[in-house]
Each structure stands twice: as C-alpha cells, then as structure tokens.
C-alpha cells in the first residue's frame, strides 16, 4: 500500500491558504519584494530560503501584518488581509530574538495572547498547560525568561505563538540562536509539533540544510523574487538555475556551448576536454551558452579509467577536505579547472586510496548532472 503523499500543490482543485498575488513592496527606492506570486497550502511547512537582504523577512512581516504590500494583494483563506492589523489576524509569529516578555513568567508569556482574547480563566489555564506539555516546559512555568536556557526560550517562544491556535504560524529564523546539535534536534521537534497541531508553518531561514530538513516545500529567493519553489529533493536534484544549484549544497558548475546530439545534449566547454554528456535541455540550440551543474557526491573518483561511463575526465588531486564521514577531493584538470568529487570514507583514513598529486579519473553518468539555461 502506497502512502498517501502530501502534495496539495500538485492538485489543481486544492485551495491555497495563502496567496501572494503580484505583491511588490518598496521601501523608498529599494524594492524588497518584486512582483511576487506564490501559493501556500494548508498544513504545509513552507520554507523561505535565501541570503540576507533577499526579501524573505519582508515577506514574512507582510504575512504578520507589520508591513503592507505597496502593490498586489495577499489573501489568507481567500480574504485580502492587506488592511488587517497584526492583532486582528489569525496569524502568529515566532520572532528571531524570541521576543519573550522579560517581566513575565514563562506561564504568563504563553498566556499573554489568550488573555487578550478574553478567554475564560480556567480555559487559559488548560491551554497553557497543554502548550507546556507539548513543548516539555512544565517544570519551568514559574521561571522568568532570563532564568532558562536558550533552547528552552526557543520552546517558550514556540509555545506562546502556538497557544492561540493560529491558522498560520510564522517562524523567523527560529533556530538561528541555537548551537548546531541543539538545532538539529529542534528541527525534528518542530516537524513533530507541526504534524501534531496541523498548523501551517512558514519558516524563514538562510540555512539551506534546515530548510531541506523541515520543509515540505522550499522557496529559494533572490533580490525580492522567488527563483524556484519546489520540494527539497527537486530543488536539490533539479535546480532551475545556477543560482539555486549554487545556493543549495555543494556543486560543480561548468559553462560551455550546447551541442544537441540524438536524445542527449553535449556541451563543449574546454579545449582538449571531452564534451559533457547529459539529458537534453528544452530548446537548447547548437552553439547556445549553457551551464552544467553536478553535485560532488555524484562524481566518482578512480585510479583507472572507468569503462562505460558517459563522462570521464582525467586530473590530479589538488586538495582533500576530510570531513570524517566523507572526503571531498578537489581535482585539478589539465586546463586548471577544479572539479570536486566526494566519496564516503568507508575505510580508515590510513588506507585512503588517493593522496595529493595522484593522477585520478573522474566519471559520472549522463543523468547525474543537469544542464541549465541560466
């Protein structure tokens, strides 16, 4: 029995929870968001990924109501929310700095939003206890924010923003202040909580690993525009541009001239080097500038020239980055270009097959990489 895959974005009948319709936001001369259109569906864990200044935070602040679009509109469940102030939106936000009220206890922090809704006292108590249980903070209810650790504060911020059961939860770099190990643990916690509560999450992050881990879909942003929106695997395996390929993970990028042959695309890229062979790119004419992106882990490295490989290049080991579980070899080609190849260290380091200045062969299949137009 196949699992029912959660993919409302592929369903033409699905109603999006949030719709950005040609939204533009300008601050003076600066265009933070440039004619952006995107749909986000209910129960999604949607990640906005990009370098600082790409407009991802502005997008989130427009969802929260702290900024209004200069042009275009934002719909929440079909309603234009442009004019709705933040305190009237069924949207809550978890701030990057957590923004916990220092003069209130953890319990009061979580109850803050509920009290504003004039919820009866006993219901507030119940709801706060529920949130404390969800985030495993029962023991800290009476403490003040400065009396708990960073990881606990992060959970308080999450509990507080979830307490009002918002339709949409916004998370602004929620794990940025945590150290790596705690961050990884918390990512899974976040996913669990998102699943348990069934809330739609929109997360802003510049950490591609984080976005890939938690999100159902990732939007890669640059200069106020979304470059690509897709599931993490598509973003990684089939980026639509060199920008996305380069932003997500490690990649070898080569540029050259297209040369379509039969059902494959060849790319001539350097004097004396064989053409790169790969799956064709729609509409690539002979002689057109194209780019080729291939991930280092898809490049094999061997001492002998492998047979039957679609692409083989010879080079010399220039550098080795030892990362424990894997090693990245920087292989210098005859023309001076560097190609990165990764291999798992399934042997101890003393028995490593290659060392500096060894002559090696790099090879990959004709489906390992992708041709890109831009």
């Amino acid at each position, binding site marked *: 029995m196949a699992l029912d895959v959660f993919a409302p974005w592929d369903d033409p009948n699905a109603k999006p929870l949030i719709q950005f319709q040609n939204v533009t936001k300008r601050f003076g001369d600066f265009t933070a968001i440039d004619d952006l259109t995107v749909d986000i569906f209910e129960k999604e864990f949607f990640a906005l990924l990009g370098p600082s200044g790409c407009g991802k935070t502005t997008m989130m602040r427009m969802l929260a109501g*702290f900024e209004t679009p200069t042009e275009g509109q934002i719909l929440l469940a079909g309603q234009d929310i442009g004019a709705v102030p933040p305190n009237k939106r069924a*949207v809550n936000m978890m701030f990057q700095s957590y*923004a916990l009220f220092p003069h209130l206890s953890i319990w009061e922090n979580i109850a803050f939003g509920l009290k*504003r809704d004039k919820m009866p006292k006993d219901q507030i108590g119940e709801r706060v206890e529920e949130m404390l249980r969800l985030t495993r903070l029962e023991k800290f209810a009476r403490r003040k924010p400065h009396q708990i650790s960073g990881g606990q504060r992060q959970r308080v911020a999450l509990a507080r923003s979830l307490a009002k059961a918002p339709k949409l939860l916004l998370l602004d770099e929620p794990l940025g202040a945590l150290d790596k190990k705690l961050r990884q643990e918390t990512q899974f916690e976040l996913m669990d909580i998102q699943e348990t509560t069934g809330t739609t999450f929109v997360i802003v992050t510049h950490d591609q690993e984080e976005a890939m881990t938690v999100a159902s879909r990732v939007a890669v942003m640059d200069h106020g525009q979304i470059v690509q929106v897709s599931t993490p695997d598509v973003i990684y395996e089939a980026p639509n541009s060199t920008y996305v390929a380069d932003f997500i993970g490690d990649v070898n990028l080569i540029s050259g001239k297209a040369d379509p042959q039969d059902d494959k695309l060849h790319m001539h890229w350097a004097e004396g080097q064989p053409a790169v062979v790969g799956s064709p790119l729609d509409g690539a004419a002979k002689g057109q500038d194209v780019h080729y992106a291939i991930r280092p882990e898809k490049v094999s490295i061997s001492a002998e020239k492998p047979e039957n490989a679609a692409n083989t290049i010879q080079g010399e080991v220039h550098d080795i980055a030892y990362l424990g579980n894997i090693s990245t070899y920087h292989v210098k080609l005859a023309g001076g270009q560097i190609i990165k190849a990764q291999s798992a260290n399934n042997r101890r380091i003393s028995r490593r097959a290659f060392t500096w200045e060894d002559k090696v062969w790099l090879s990959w299949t004709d489906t390992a990489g992708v041709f890109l137009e831009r």
Partner: protein
Amino acid sequence: MRRLLIAVPFLWLLALFIVPFAIVFKISLSDLAVAIPPYTPTLDFAEGWAGLKAFYAELDFENYIWLTEDDLYWKAYLSSFKIAVISTLLTLLVGYPIAYGIARAPQEWRAMLFMLVILPFWTSFLIRVYAWMGILSQEGYLNQVLLWIGVINEPLIILNTNIAVYIGIVYTYLPFMILPIYAALEKLDISLLEAAEDLGCSRFSAFWLVTIPLSKQGIIAGSFLVFIPTIGEFVIPSLLGGSRTLMIGKVLWEEFFSNRDWPVASAVAVVLLLILIIPIVLFQRNEQKQREADK
C-alpha cells in the same frame, strides 16, 4: 592598593558629609544665644576635660521638642511632601512622553534632542528661575500672549502661587526624569511590542502591558531623582511661590537668616535628612535591582 582605592570615596564622604553633618547635628543640640556664633555652648579646649564635660552637659534635644510643639514645622514638612509628590507626578507626565519620543526618534536626531533637554543647564539656574518670573507675572509674556489671542480677558495670577512653584519645579527637574526613563526605553526591544501586537494587543494595550512595565525601573529612578531634591527645595518656592507657599526649605532659610536661630534651623535640617533617608534607601534598592536585572 585596594584599601587606598576604597579610602578615597570614604574620605570624600567623611569630609563632605559626615563631618558637616556632625557639626550641624551638634548645633541642633545647642541653645540660641546672642553671640558669634549665635549659639551656646561652644567647645573651649583651654578648659580641658572639665570643659568638655560641661559642654556635653549643656547639649539637649530641646529644639527637636520645639519642632513638635509649633505646628508650623510639621505643616511645612507635610506641605513640602505634598508639593514634592505632585511635582514628581507632573514631571513624570511631562517627561515620559519626551523620553519616549527621543527613544523612538531616528538615531541621528537623538543627540540633538538630548542637547535640547540639557541645554538650559548651561545657564545659571537662578537666571532661569528669574526668567520664569518674567513669563508668569501679571504683565508677563504668558498673560500678554493669552490676552492677545483672546483666550482670557483679565491677566491670570500665576506668579506667587503654588502653580508657579509646580511650573518651576517641573521645568527645573525635567531632565532628571527624562534621562533614566530614556535609558530604560532605549533598551526596549521593538520586537517585544511587535510580539505583543501579534498576540492580539492594540497599540495602546501593548504600550500599557509591555512598554510601561519594562520602563518601570526608569520611572522609579526618575521619580526619586525629582522627589528627593524637591522636598528640600528652597529657591523655587521663595522666588516663584507666594507667602502662603509653605515649604520646609523656605522655613529652614528663614530660621537661619531671618530669625538667626541656628540651633532650630539645624534641627529642621537634621529631621529633613532623616525623612529623606527613606526615599534614598528605596532609590538605592531600585538601582541595585536594576543592576541585577541587567546582568
């Protein structure tokens, strides 16, 4: 070395507080005399041990008892207290919005706004109080402007009333209120207000539930900085206040210079100091709490 460092503030306190206080306290236990200095006994070292004994035998608490018998004094203390409380509240009401405005102003404006708050301090305090006399008197600028606009038909009598005293005190002590409140507001993270709004607060309730509690330390510090000197204030009530403005500072001055009754004046001063110890201790405690919270 450490002892030496600690010794400096202690010597400072000894020379400029403890010793003068001891002298004043001693005078307060003496009796009025037509002499120079105008009290007795005075310590005569020539008579040796017997002289010292005789000196101590003559000291008593008569003047303090006198303070309780004449209702002028406790009325003056009470009236000073009342005026100090009201002026502190007024200064807070005026100062808080100014501090808030400066804290929320663009970074590049703040230095200039501060300058405007502090600038009057560069002129003599006395001149500024005299200037207020010119503004508030019956033929003063304020009345002229109001008459010219047509708001009033007859000049208002402000000078030589308690209202003039309040105006003078608020004007003089405003910076002491603004600075600590500004310091508290400037530290306030804007995202806390956004969080409050995000959780359902209106702008106003976010201010009430977040901004005010988080600037509490500044409000307390500013209030004490205004309240403590105001209780003993002398120049403002004597120049701007009327004959019916009763403040202990003024009483003290009159005892000292008009009546030349140094012993009673000293007793008034000692009692005033004892009264002020309570708010000073509270102020120190607030500062301590602030430091602990900042850690």
